[in-house]
């Protein structure tokens, strides 16, 4: 379902929580994300290569984590929002069979620019924190 409404800057308060998003991690998502991001590093599509590196299976590449974090915030902010920055600290890998839950909270607002900082955490149900960071978006003053 596409979100066609944009959140207005003035409607956002520090402390607002974004609706959580659950993402089932599958081999298809991991391989699909790696290929869609042009990242053919073998550990993201070749299980033997991932195992040679000490992990039991292929794992999600960083560009996919980036893409999911960006998507999570624009799902909420809407199509007229402009993403300015995505700052991610990476944690435990995402492997097939895991479920990642993404949550977010508005941490800061800048009235002069209409810019909002959203703190985002993606946690998987097996190994814990996969990604945490900040997505900075510019919102229109009025929707």
């Amino acid at each position, binding site marked *: 379902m596409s979100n066609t409404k944009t959140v207005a800057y003035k409607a956002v308060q520090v402390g607002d929580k974004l609706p959580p998003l659950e993402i089932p991690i599958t081999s298809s998502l991991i391989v699909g994300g790696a290929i*869609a991001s042009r990242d053919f590093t073998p550990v993201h*599509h070749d299980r033997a290569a991932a195992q040679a590196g000490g992990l039991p299976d292929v794992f999600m590449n960083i560009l996919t984590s980036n893409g999911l974090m960006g*998507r999570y915030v624009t799902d909420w902010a809407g199509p007229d929002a402009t*993403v300015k920055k*995505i700052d991610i600290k990476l944690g435990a890998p995402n492997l097939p069979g895991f479920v990642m839950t993404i949550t977010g909270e508005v941490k800061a607002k800048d009235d002069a620019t209409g810019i909002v900082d959203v703190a985002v955490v993606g946690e998987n149900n*097996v190994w814990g924190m996969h990604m945490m960071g900040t997505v900075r978006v510019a919102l229109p003053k009025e929707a």
Partner: protein
Amino acid sequence: MTPEEKKVFMDKIHAFVGMEMAPPTKGPDDVNKAMIRHWCEVMGDANPVYTDEAFAKASSKGSIIAPPAMLQAWSLEGYPMHSPSKDEALLDNQRKLHKVFDDHGYTGVLGTNCTQEYFRDLKPGDQVIAHTVIDSISEEKATQRGIGHFIETVTRFTDQNGEKVGEMRFRVLKFIPNESNKVESAKDEGKPEVPTRIASPRGHDNAWWWQQVDKGVVPIQRCKNCQTLRHPPRSMCGECQSIEWDFIESKLEGEVFSFVELHYPKFPGYQYPLICAVISLGEGTRIVSNIVGCKPEDVKIGMKVKGKVEQVDEKTMLPQFYPA
């Protein structure tokens, strides 16, 4: 490595700082609708300004834009990445640097941080030129994964007019893998190991206590000389300084003396909600444990509880307390 070898290694890696990974390189494809759509399909990103031409035209964007997080995707080499050249002379400087690390045992690699800034939206027809410089290499750090160095690169992205469109700082850890980690995670082929609770520390004075718990008994240490009970286990009686002791088995009946709910950070291997409580036992000693079997908001100081020893995960036996 000997101190001399270490110095040679450090000089070798530091020589890479400030080097460009490769000359500025134009992405193999201009920004285009097909690759945008493929990306959105996988990410489950239904933002109409990425794929719906009519919507995008009527929006503040004026036309279709690329998801900002695709920035680096426009510049990647693609399929050839699956088998980098075996000819060392053909490797880019970043791969050469990684090879120096590999040759000295730092074979592990892990992305730790990625910061991308976007200076404008990219639209179909735009070209993306990437220029990556090796910005810094940290001193040696002891990390959970093993001893290693952080390498930070900066990539500046420009367009067909030489205007800056974005910038990325990327940090990887090159490390000597901890053997224990490696064996642990890869031992059950194809299946990620489910984490367990942090193992109880079993030392000279308290291992006996945990061994009883493993058998389903929660013991309370008792002074053989003056019969005073004590917990946690220790070698000497605080009342009479005797080091002779035995133990009794607790009935695990008591009340909540104090408690806290752990929210953040969540530790792998623990079930949430997670209540840690100090329980005053009927025998007179106190014990730290969990309260389970009720909602966190129903836990009250003074609440009567009854405990039993349970297997909480594949490796761990622990007393757990329920509302009585």
